[in-house]
């Protein structure tokens, strides 16, 4: 259980809209957890709170003894939490290699960076594209590059926001294999995704979010059979 992420009674309010409503969720180390739910359920808001971009109205996000809701984005990242954004966020004017070097973080000694970057280029399958300016990559390549940047610091917690959005079936399969390979006993992985086949392929457990609350938590097969989940996804 140690090393995981414990989200405790989290509420986020935008004006009169409750994006997250007293949400509690524990992502264990060693687990791949998928968070699914219809648009507006609060999935991206949840990641925004964990990565420090949005401040909650109440509640805590504990990583070990550290309350992430009290930390700045950079401190959260230094604590070992890395996030891949929904829109692939790479630095367009830098090369693939330079993007990965920045992903290694400020604390990795300069001498250790080239080896790490070379290994990452292989992991995400961009070795042949190392010196290409990131802005010229295809959408799928940008997704993989960003996953590589997220991995570069060997994080304890990985947050992936729609990693296969806009990818072809072949690219999705490749991304699923990549995420399977990220699984480690000391690492918690949280994936937000709409692609149910992908979720089934990578996730140990799913949490279904609806109106900022947990609707269901458990295996994917159970989610498919749950009457409330079906109702939420098929519309009212």
């Amino acid at each position, binding site marked *: 259980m140690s090393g995981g992420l414990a989200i405790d009674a989290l509420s986020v309010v935008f004006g009169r809209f409750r994006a997250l409503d007293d949400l509690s969720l524990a992502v264990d180390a060693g687990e791949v957890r998928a968070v699914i739910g219809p648009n507006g359920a609060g999935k991206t808001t949840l990641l925004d709170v964990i990565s420090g971009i949005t401040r909650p109205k109440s509640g805590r996000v504990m990583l070990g003894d550290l309350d992430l809701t009290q930390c700045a984005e950079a401190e*959260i990242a230094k604590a070992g939490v890395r996030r891949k954004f929904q829109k692939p966020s790479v630095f367009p004017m830098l090369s693939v290699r330079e993007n990965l070097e920045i992903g290694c973080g400020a604390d990795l000694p300069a001498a250790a960076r080239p080896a790490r970057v070379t290994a990452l280029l292989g992991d995400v399958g961009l070795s042949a594209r190392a010196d290409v300016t990131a802005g010229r990559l295809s959408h799928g390549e940008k997704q993989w590059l960003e996953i590589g940047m997220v991995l570069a610091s060997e994080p304890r917690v990985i947050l992936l926001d729609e990693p296969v959005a806009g990818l072809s079936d072949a690219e999705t399969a490749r991304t699923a294999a990549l995420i399977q390979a990220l699984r480690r006993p000391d690492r918690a992985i949280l994936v937000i995704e709409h692609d149910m086949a992908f979720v089934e392929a990578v996730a140990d457990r799913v949490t279904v979010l609806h109106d900022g609350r947990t609707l269901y938590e458990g295996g994917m097969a159970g989610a498919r059979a749950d009457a409330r989940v079906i109702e939420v996804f098929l519309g009212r």
Partner: protein
Amino acid sequence: MSGNAETFPVPRRRDGAARLGARIARDPLVAILSAAILGIALCLVLVRPSPYLVNAAGQLAAFAILAVSLDLVWGYLGILSLGHGLFFAVGGYVCAMHLVAHAYAVTGIPPDFVQFMGWKTLPWYWAGLTNAPYALVLALGLAVLVAFVFGLASFRSRVNGVYFSIISQALVYVAMLLMFRNDTGLGGNNGMTGFSLLFGWPMGSPGVTLGLAVASLAALAAVLVGASLLVGSRTGRLMLACRDDETRLRTLGYGTTRLKLGIWCLSAAIAALAGILYVPQVGIINPRVLAPDLSIEIAVWVAIGGIGRLGGAVLGAVLVNALKFWLTAAMPEAWPFILSGLVLLVVLALPNGLLDLAALRLKPTWLRGGTR
């Protein structure tokens, strides 16, 4: 925005001077311009053209330094300052104070504004300004201090983009109103002029004019090469990353406030250096240098030359100001229209400034289709 792969490739390990040379040569435009600037300085010394021309070259060099200072924060860090005239003025004013104090100490004649205000001597904060090294440290230190306080307040509160630009503009305006007051002991609305001596030599003599111009050109070459090394370094890559996606950089574990603050203060110091070099060459400083339109004009030079290319900033500043020297004499009433027309032309036809001409990319963005 192509061509960046050539501008910022991965540094390769080399030794000492060869590596340094290779890093400078990486942006060929910077290498060519630095060589040309030093060549011009050498020509001035050897050929001795008319003092008017020498003086013009020196002033243009000071403006080019100012443009580089703005390009560093705007082009490479995405911080558009519309108040860079403030730091230029800090350098200029302190330099003027030194010149006035020096002349007063040598000649014993009190400066105009002291007589005008009916004072017996200079205010206390002029103490020590006869000492040139102290004046230099004070000019740069004051500019950095003002930049640090303003930058810390803004960047910590995450004031970015257009809001930062507007506040920087307000800051320079406030400074102008302050300097228009006659009781500041800094010359008031008349400013300071009539600088008679520079390090004991008579101001305006061909030798001093030449010396100032050569010093300005050498400073420009040094600033250009130094800035080019900075933007080609790891820090430079972090600057571009911060410019393009600050949130992404933060969530990778980098505190961007310190990065922005450091470069912002460096930029202020370079702008102050430009002011220090400019004032003895133009022979006057007054609150007009703090006018908001002048600060906007600095951004115009950079935009016309090409944002985010140090060479572009130099070319923009030199071309626009050379045109201004010529046209404000030939047809002063037309100058604002010509400048505005130039801005419109660049925005519509050459989104990356005049450097687009060099790359022969004459097709404007709106004809080129979707890609950035």
